């Protein structure tokens, strides 16, 4: 399959003549699957937001329990102490038979399982959790638990590194960099799943007001567990085993394997997604509006470091390999172009050059890099990324059908111009399998289940709504229309949300034969702060989280905001 075609088009409106913020990129450009699937992390990504808070508020970390037997069975507890509250990661190690190890939703056992506990667990809490957490979805947790997760060892790396340490040798940094993690999570649950605390009960706390902050904190603590689990395995092999060097630990993150389960999130939370994307686009617009080149040297250094990051990004997937190679070439040309900043509006000028000359991966990496040196201008936007979705739920029944049609034309043009009579336009259907409720993607007509499809049929529904509304008087109220056409209720709600939240809707048909679910996954994961996207198929991807981030004991001693891009060669240790 050919690599993604490059979109080299000038999307930006002409530059304003004064110092006003640069125009924001429109949703018709930003919310395309191909571009969402090319997003990179930014300083507004949730992991970055978390680490800035941990540093700013002086969070302290310690391990309050570590009781694992030589085979790895047992419990460990890691405590995070904030200015007002403490949280504890309770980790259960397991001696997992290799034939049972799988990342699929249909797994029943894992190398390790976790909860993030609200406070400090008693022995009774730990006993209760021990009965339930290793079972994951088959167990129950309570409102005192905030996050639940599980992780498996990297088969490539874990045992090899343990062996090396047992033999008295640190592993080679290069070997670790190939994988980037010792363990990878295969699900990280929050928001009330399986009995966990509902988001509403914790989002009043400043540390959890932002999206996914509890999940990110849990993963950050899991990272420490992976080092301890490894060191423990090494010591079980030999009492004189070394502990993994902290500098090597820092170069490792937590892996994650994500499949179709995550894809519907971008569709089921339109107002929330709008907040994330709007914050990101606002940040880009602010960076582009900066009139001087005072921070150009910083930018050039970041660009050089980004080129190192890309050079170390190796995947097996042919499509992504080609994209990475192209990204590398694009960054070379970007470096040439950026050598001297333009005299007027240099940041905007560079972005516009990028629109015309770089592929999508390059454009989006440039966007991330333009934002990066401007923390003082954009970091406040992190506080605008949460959303009270309940407040967005009500339908405005008073809206007229002519206003509804206007909204459809303004925000769903991609749907209105699709010919759904063509089989390719409805080639896929999203469904949930009876088998452990695993989300799957089917080929319509080739396999059963299409009539039970999940509500990702937005484009088709929007087109049908437009036709039905056009057949009614324009002054009719939506309220009366819906009484006669109850099956349009969901799409009417979406259209009204999109009218208030321009970045709410993915501007592509999710049923199309050429749709790549991985674009949805990467869009969301980039907002988390993931790096090293490693596709295993068009609907399954591995990533790394917190790779390069300071270790908990380093918070406050090293910069907690400068870990995404590897240091330049001269600064590199070992």
């Amino acid at each position, binding site marked *: 399959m050919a690599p993604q075609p490059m979109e080299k088009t000038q999307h930006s409106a002409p530059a304003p003549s004064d110092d006003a913020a640069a125009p924001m990129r429109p949703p018709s450009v930003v919310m395309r699957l191909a571009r969402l699937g090319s997003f990179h992390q930014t300083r507004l990504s949730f992991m970055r937001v978390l680490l800035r808070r941990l540093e700013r508020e002086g969070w302290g970390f310690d391990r309050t329990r570590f009781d694992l037997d030589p085979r790895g069975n047992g419990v460990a507890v890691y405590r995070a102490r904030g200015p007002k509250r403490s949280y504890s990661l309770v980790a259960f190690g397991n001696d997992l038979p290799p034939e049972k190890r799988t990342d699929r939703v249909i797994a029943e056992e894992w190398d390790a399982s976790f909860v993030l506990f609200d406070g400090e667990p008693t022995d009774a809490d730990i006993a209760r959790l021990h009965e339930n957490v290793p079972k994951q979805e088959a167990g129950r947790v309570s409102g005192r638990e905030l996050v639940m997760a599980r992780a498996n060892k990297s088969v490539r790396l874990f045992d090899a590194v343990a062996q090396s340490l047992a033999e008295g040798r640190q592993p080679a940094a290069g070997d670790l960099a190939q994988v980037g993690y010792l363990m990878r999570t295969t699900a990280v649950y929050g928001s009330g799943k399986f009995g966990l605390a509902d988001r509403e009960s914790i989002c009043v706390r400043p540390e959890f007001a932002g999206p996914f902050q509890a999940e990110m904190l849990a993963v950050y603590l899991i990272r420490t567990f992976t080092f301890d689990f490894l060191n423990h395995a090494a010591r079980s092999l030999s009492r004189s085993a070394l502990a993994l060097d902290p500098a090597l630990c820092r170069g490792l993150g937590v892996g994650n394997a994500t499949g179709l389960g995550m894809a519907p999130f971008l569709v089921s939370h339109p107002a929330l997604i709008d907040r994330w994307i709007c914050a990101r686009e606002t940040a880009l617009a602010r960076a582009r509006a900066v009139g001087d080149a005072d921070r150009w040297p910083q930018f050039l250094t970041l660009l050089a470091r980004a080129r190192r990051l890309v050079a170390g990004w190796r995947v097996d997937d042919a499509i992504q390999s080609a994209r990475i190679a192209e990204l590398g070439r694009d960054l070379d040309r970007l470096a040439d172009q950026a050598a001297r900043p333009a005299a007027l509006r240099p940041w905007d000028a560079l972005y516009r050059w990028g629109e015309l000359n770089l592929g999508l991966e390059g454009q989006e990496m440039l966007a991330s890099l333009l934002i990066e040196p401007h923390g003082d201008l954009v970091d406040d936007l992190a506080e605008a990324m949460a959303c009270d979705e309940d407040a967005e739920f009500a339908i405005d029944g008073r809206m007229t059908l002519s206003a509804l049609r206007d909204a459809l034309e303004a925000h769903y043009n991609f749907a209105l111009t699709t010919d759904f009579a063509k089989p390719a336009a409805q080639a896929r259907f999203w469904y949930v399998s009876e088998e452990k409720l695993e989300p799957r993607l089917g080929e319509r007509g080739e*396999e059963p289940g299409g009539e039970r499809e999940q509500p990702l049929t937005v484009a088709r529904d929007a087109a049908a709504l437009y036709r039905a509304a056009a057949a009614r008087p324009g002054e009719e109220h939506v309220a009366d229309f819906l009484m006669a056409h*109850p099956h349009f209720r969901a799409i009417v709600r979406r259209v009204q949300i999109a009218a208030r939240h321009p970045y709410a809707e993915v501007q592509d048909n999710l049923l199309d034969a050429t749709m790549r679910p991985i674009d949805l996954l990467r869009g969301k994961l980039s907002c988390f702060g993931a790096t090293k996207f490693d596709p295993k198929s068009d609907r399954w991807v591995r990533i790394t989280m917190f790779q390069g981030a300071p270790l908990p004991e380093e918070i406050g001693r090293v910069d907690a905001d400068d870990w995404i891009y590897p240091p330049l060669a001269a600064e590199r240790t070992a």
Partner: protein
Amino acid sequence: MIFSLNEIEAETRKAVRGAGLPWGLAEEGGKAVRWLAGQGIDATAALADILDRHAAGGLGVGILRDGDGRWISPQDILCPLTLGAAVCDHAWLLAEGRTLAAGEVARPILLLPFAARAARLSGKPLAFVAGRQQVNFDRNGAPAGALNFADIAEAASVTCETYRSDIRGLQREGLERPDLDRPSWEKIEAFAFRTCVPASEHSRRHGAGAGLLDND
């Protein structure tokens, strides 16, 4: 059985869909049962009942106006999710002083969340009357006083209109986790399961994109 509010909403939404209602009303059903649970009220029996009746053909999503402008069912009796949606969609009429009236409705307890929302949307306090029971809500949608509403099978009539004085409701967190009735919950789960597709070898191998074993 104790569940999070998120679980209650998600399972209920799937169940309403599984009973054959459109996704838009399924969303409403999920939010309604969730709101009631957050107020400490277990509405699973009410919901399971209306889903049974939908599945048996005794309830539908149709809604009409009769000669007096009251909402009625084209069949026998109104579905509360359908009526509740219509009330909220017409909330602007409440602010204009109009009364929203309906005929017979099943399981009126499920209308309470919609009445609360209609109050909030209209920006005015609201008097909700179903049969012989009345609940008042303040302009923010908070119930005035304790939420005591008997879960009766049917109400002969329903009205919503702006309440005559500006009351202040009880501001609750709305985060309770009531102990839900097991048989009703299991019925809801059974309806929810209808939204799943039976597994097959083909589906297991190809549907998720990770092969049978994903390992590194």
